[in-house]
């Protein structure tokens, strides 16, 4: 069971991620950042709860849904703004502008495959690598219910089972892959797939970020003890469209309204107060702090320099 400090850290990180995303939306409205973004609202409980169970030296393969796992892994907010502004402050120093290619090796953020599923294989390789190098690093790989149906998952999961890899698959099941519902496109339950590969499968409701953390911590501890992989299916909700501005004609109002009741940030806030970890004032202070930090980061990131032509053929070859 999470302790008080952990719960507060989880809430702070989730709230920060939400504030970061709101700030990004403003940058997008101002035309400073490209509009193509997959909002993370609704998956913060999953991404933060799970990622905070990792150490700095552990590896993260994040997914395209929001940025809260990357924020939780320690990548500076300013650098993330820089990536979306496509300027010199970004982790790729302007090469990537927008989704997909944030990378932060110092914090174990190994980047992302723009083709869904590619990261599952790279995660398996990273986990095998730490096993061969005899470090105690754990690799955590996030992906959605849709990406879970790519063959890449099978090859990564089979290897994770056969070689007892220190690897944690976090399937964020928000019920949708763009417009396609999980029921339409998926046979069986994701959590049940773990058993067929010989490792543990756990299901947890992502509306409860603290519960996610408990499950993730157990998985991380098992992995570090050399007891192999875990598949965590987290039920999340997509509080927005697939991308910012998706009309979502394919989705019923009921589904959207039900989702709205599952906001992990709202629920965590109430829980903090209920448990007496913080009182209303304490929470408000934390939130003000977080928003301030985000605003500072956004402002600091803006003056970054856009890359110029000379950048184009850099880093193709070592």
């Amino acid at each position, binding site marked *: 069971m999470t302790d008080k400090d952990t719960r507060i850290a989880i809430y702070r990180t989730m709230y920060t991620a939400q504030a970061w995303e709101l700030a990004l939306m403003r940058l997008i409205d101002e035309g400073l950042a490209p509009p193509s973004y997959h909002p993370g609202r609704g998956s913060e409980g999953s991404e933060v709860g799970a990622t905070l169970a990792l150490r700095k030296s552990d590896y993260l393969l994040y997914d395209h849904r929001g940025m809260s796992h990357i924020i939780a892994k320690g990548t500076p907010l300013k650098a993330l703004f820089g990536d979306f502004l496509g300027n010199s402050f970004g982790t790729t120093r*302007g090469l990537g502008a927008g989704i997909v290619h944030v990378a932060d090796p110092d914090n174990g953020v190994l980047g992302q495959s*723009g*083709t869904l599923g590619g990261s599952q294989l790279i995660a398996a390789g990273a986990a095998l690598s730490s096993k061969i190098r005899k470090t105690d690093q754990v690799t955590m790989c996030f992906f959605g219910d849709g990406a879970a149906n790519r063959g890449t998952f099978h090859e990564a999961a089979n290897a994770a089972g056969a070689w007892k890899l220190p690897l944690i698959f976090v399937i964020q099941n928000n019920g949708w892959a763009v417009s*396609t519902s999980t029921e339409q*496109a998926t046979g069986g339950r994701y959590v049940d797939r773990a058993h067929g590969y010989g490792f543990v499968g756990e299901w947890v409701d992502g509306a409860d970020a603290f519960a996610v953390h408990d499950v993730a911590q157990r998985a991380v501890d098992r992995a570090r003890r050399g007891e192999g992989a875990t598949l965590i299916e987290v039920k999340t909700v997509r509080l927005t469209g697939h991308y910012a501005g998706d009309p979502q004609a394919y989705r019923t109002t009921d589904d959207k309204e039900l989702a709205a009741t599952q906001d992990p940030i709202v629920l965590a806030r109430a829980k903090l107060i209920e448990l007496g970890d913080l009182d209303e004032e304490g929470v408000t202070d934390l939130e003000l702090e977080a928003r301030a930090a985000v605003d500072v980061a956004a402002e600091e990131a803006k003056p970054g320099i856009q890359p110029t032509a000379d950048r*184009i053929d850099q880093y193709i070859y070592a």
Partner: protein
Amino acid sequence: MPRTISYSQAINEALTEEMERDERVVLMGEDVGRMGGIFGVTPGIYEKFGADRAIDTPISEMLIVGGAVGMAITGLRPVAELQFADFIFNAADETFSKMSKWRYMHGGQFTVPMVLRLPEGATGGGGAEHSQCPEAALLEHPGSHIVVASNPADAKGLLKAAIRDDNPVAFFEHKGLYAMKGEVPDGDHLVEIGKADIKRQGTDVTIVAWGKMVGLSLKAAEQLQKQGISAEVLDTRGLRPLDTEAIFASIEKTGRLIIAQEAPKSGGGASEIAAIVAEEALDLLEAPIIRVGAMDVPIPQNAMLEALVLPTSADIERAAISMLR
């Protein structure tokens, strides 16, 4: 009398008409049904033909192509879509060795009447894995046609022809053209696959292009005209079958050849066409061939850098001028 509609609407009409004409034709891919496609190309088809003929698939590219092959050899005529042409590399064995070779490998006992729709091209910020024009990737794998539409009329006529063709067809649609408007003939409009189209007559230089580069080539040709250079623009409408006769005939007139593609300069259709000309029509050339293509780098995610990497009509213009100096 012809109507003016968009490239994506033309594709939608082609699909609708062929699905009405032949109940064996089924549409499949990610989000092509209920949503009508992430680029809004297939709205209405699910409503008209139902879930069995407008199939929303899982995110399983190997299944989309390999499954379509299984459907095509058992009595259906699937039109499968990969959401981005780049994903052809997530189903490469299925596309190159199953779709294209199943018939031959099994002694001609099957036909594989399927179309693989491939939305291609860079549109600003898609990055290295959502912006490619991998038409040439099929060249070393015989057995399928490679078709690329440069305008609404061709998009409709070529797609209808592709669906009726008993061979597998890789059908590339440029995402940057979906909104393009153009006249489309009424009625059962079909365009022959593998027949080049001279989009503009000229005498000084031949510009061979396909897909989105046709428009850029025409733009360049207009600019060149002002400078007294008469450019002929030839739309190959794809890479296989390739209308080499039309290409040679044009070079015979002009003596100069520019090949313009959006794909990186190396390893694309331009290289193939240049090689064919260097083999079979070298004597017609009065100047070295020039390939205009993207820089040989992965497409940067940053739209500003992307713009610098992509070939432009100005590049084509410069190439022509350099040839005639």
